[in-house]
């Protein structure tokens, strides 16, 4: 049983990462009905920038955190202005934005590779001891738990933002009824820019938080992009709840498969679950009103 619970606790940490990427998608999707395929690469930029600042330049954690969050949010905002906005203005239902944001992610990855690709993959300092604490017989790593805490904080912060602020309420409403919101005179461009800024900030925060776990590997972006999407597909599209549940389920399932199956083929787990969900319950485990718009 120790093995089982260890897998579950590690899975919660990994699942939190997928969930965070999925939340990033959800924020943008509910405001713009598009998807940012660079979301995973933005997380990667957060990781690499943390590595650059802390490992290479010994910048303190807090300063790194602030810089990373600001910087990644800015890239995300630039993406909105340059890459996504033309599609929103055109109001086309086609998937041009899909190709365009994928193109943006390729650009980001290539730039980072050119800057840092020659460095050996190395560790990034953690604010926590590398050991863990014991719960019963299960040893839980500090950094892993910290990622989970970040996950919870982001969920709560987003919830408060969506309830208490005007723009947050607009976004929340927009995920349910887009036309009604545009009739209320809310500027869709402001909403779209805010969504990209927020999703970028979440990506930066995620990158900083997971940096000590994943090391300085600039090739992880696409994997997170896709896993975050799988979380949504499993949990249900368009709601934060779907992203949270789907991400955690995927993370735990992968870890359990590593323990009881064969860790070499971990990557197949997500594919099998998603195909099963598509066959049995195509709208995801939690249906949401936005799902039908797909």
């Amino acid at each position: 049983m120790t093995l089982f619970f260890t897998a579950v606790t590690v899975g919660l940490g990994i699942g939190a990462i997928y969930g965070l990427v999925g939340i990033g998608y959800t924020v943008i999707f509910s405001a713009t009905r598009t998807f940012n395929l660079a979301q995973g690469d933005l997380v990667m930029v957060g990781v690499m920038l943390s590595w650059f600042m802390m490992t290479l330049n010994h910048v303190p954690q807090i300063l790194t955190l602030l810089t990373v969050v600001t910087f990644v949010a800015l890239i995300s905002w630039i993406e909105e202005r340059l890459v996504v906005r033309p599609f929103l203005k055109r109001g086309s239902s086609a998937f041009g934005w899909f190709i365009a944001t994928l193109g943006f992610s390729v650009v980001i990855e290539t730039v980072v590779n050119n800057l840092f690709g020659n460095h050996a993959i190395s560790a990034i300092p953690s604010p926590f001891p590398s050991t863990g604490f014991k719960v019963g017989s299960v040893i839980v790593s500090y950094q892993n738990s910290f990622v989970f805490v970040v996950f919870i904080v982001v969920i709560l912060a987003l919830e408060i933002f969506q309830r208490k602020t005007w723009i947050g309420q607009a976004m929340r409403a927009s995920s349910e009824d887009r036309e009604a919101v545009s009739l209320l005179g809310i500027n869709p461009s402001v909403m779209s820019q805010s969504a990209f800024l927020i999703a970028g900030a979440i990506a930066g925060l995620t990158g900083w938080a997971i940096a000590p776990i994943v090391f300085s590997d600039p090739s992880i972006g696409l994997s997170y992009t896709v896993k975050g999407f799988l979380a949504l597909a499993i949990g249900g599209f368009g709601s934060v709840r779907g992203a949270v549940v789907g991400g955690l389920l995927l993370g735990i399932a992968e870890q359990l498969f590593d323990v009881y199956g064969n860790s070499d083929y971990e990557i197949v787990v997500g594919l099998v679950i998603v195909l099963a969900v598509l066959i049995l319950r195509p709208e995801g485990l939690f249906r949401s009103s936005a799902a039908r718009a797909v």
Partner: protein
Amino acid sequence: MTVLRRVATGGVATFVIWVAIAMLAPNVLGSSTFRLGELEYILALLMLATGLNIVLGYAGQLFLGPSAFFGVAGYAAAIVATHNAGLQSLWVMCLIGAVTALIVAAVVALPSLRIGGFYLGMLTLYLALVVPDVVSHWSLAGGQQGLSLVTDLNFVQSPTGVPLYQIGVLILAVLALYSWVIKHSRLGRRLAAIQASNEMAQSLGITSYSTKVAAFMLAAVPCGIAGAYYFYAVQFMNPSVITPNMSIDVLAGITIGGGGTVLGPIIGTGLVGSASQFLGGFNQYQGIVYGIALIGVAIGAPTGIMGQYAKLKERFLPARPAVAPLAGKQREAARGAGGPAAANSRGTSDGSPRPGGDGPGVLLRATNVSRGFGGVRALDGVNLTVTPGVVHALVGPNGSGKTTLLNLISGFYRLHGGEICLGPHRLDTRRADQIAQLGIARTFQTPKLLDVESALTNVVVACDRHAAAPVVSSVLHTRGGLRAERTGARDAYAMLKEVGLDEESFRFAGLLPHGTQRLLEIARAMALRPKFLLLDEPAAGLSAAEVQALSRAVRSAADQGVGVLLVEHNLPVVFGLADQVTVLHQGRVLAEGTPSDVSANPEVVRIYIGRERLTADDRITPEGASS
């Protein structure tokens, strides 16, 4: 060899010249083993692009993981060949590759196409990550080292060297032909319809799920052959060959070259592949260039190089009218339909009956229909019966539920209460494409057309519903298939003639004036040989002359026994044309009867604010209308 004859009438000379140039490439670029390997890799990419284009370019579905199919097929060929010396021929490997790719395509496509859209995009992208990861851990596939035939002493590569490269060129040529044949078939037109608008495709009775699955399977074959050819030629397969970057390269190639054309993906991927093979220092930065190209093309020029080429041609060769591509053969076929006999027979040159076979007197009946949107009841217990041969107008102020009712009948909205029947068939339990197949045709408020196809092709898509030959024969261009194509073109032309658009047959539908587009939509709807025709505000924005042409077309449809349900704001048009009028108000039927009954109804007059009563000035009697 009807295929060859068909090609011979087209650009066969150009085709042969290009193949010959490609064959001679080693004479110019060198024929060292290393150089041939580079060329063969580019060939494999081109084959891959040709396959991907069928899904991405023709059907507009986001298929982003061609490298996964390439990898699975290449590895399947490699595993079989390295373990079995008897199965080391190029053709056996290609067969294994194609079959494996087909199996994987089925496993992925069948579930993910149920939702489609970016689900398909993401899942196929994920597949591009999964395949290299899995084979790198799989001992049978050689793990990180991969598989190689180089050290296999039993293996004799034959053909080898330059002939092997040239065979690759021929395979590519055959695949290009395969792609061309699909594009210019009934299936290709269906894919184009799905790409243009899913609703439009459904309204033409096209079942989008099975059509997309077919496209996916057809696309898998070239992807599989590409992987197998690559392995045979280079004798080496390893996880680093089939990274997602390969998919990105091919995707960039297709987007840059112009998806949807046969040649565009080959040109674009040729550029991308050559750059990565021959510009050494560029490799490091190619992601930036391709990324920007993907963004730029997606934003600015969705049709890529081929689209820009067509635009330039149009600008600098204005002498040639904007004739849709490959209209030549259709033109030939259509000429045969010029006679008055064909036009009089409504273009149903084979005279087959309307679909369904329920006899002539079937009614379209909506009983106690309700539908809400959120808290608003758009329709509340509406009853409506449309009779064959009758023009039935549905009028009412904005928001009275007219279009909602039309969308319910044609299956685009789900009913909340009541039922809609066509004779004995319940319609409200069926999908839109099934309803269209039962004989309910419709038009849209904003015309939905294949903009970059000729007006004729737009109608041919609808005529395809009644083609005498199966889809397969259309794709294979067999004799029967070609005969059906000719019949389709002839019927379509007759249909266009009937609404007075025969002169516009070969113009791009997207370039026609708005009113003409509406007539074209009606011609297309009538080409389905419907029992009932639903028109959604057909007169909106039309000039007086266009309204007259429209009225003639509607009247002629009714005279042929079609029941027409006309949603219309323009009261003079309604009163000049309709036999029967139903007035909706706030989701309920306010009045029903002949135009004179209804226009005398004080309730009806009252809801049209500002009008005391309708006068004779409101009427126009369309010229040539037989009522």
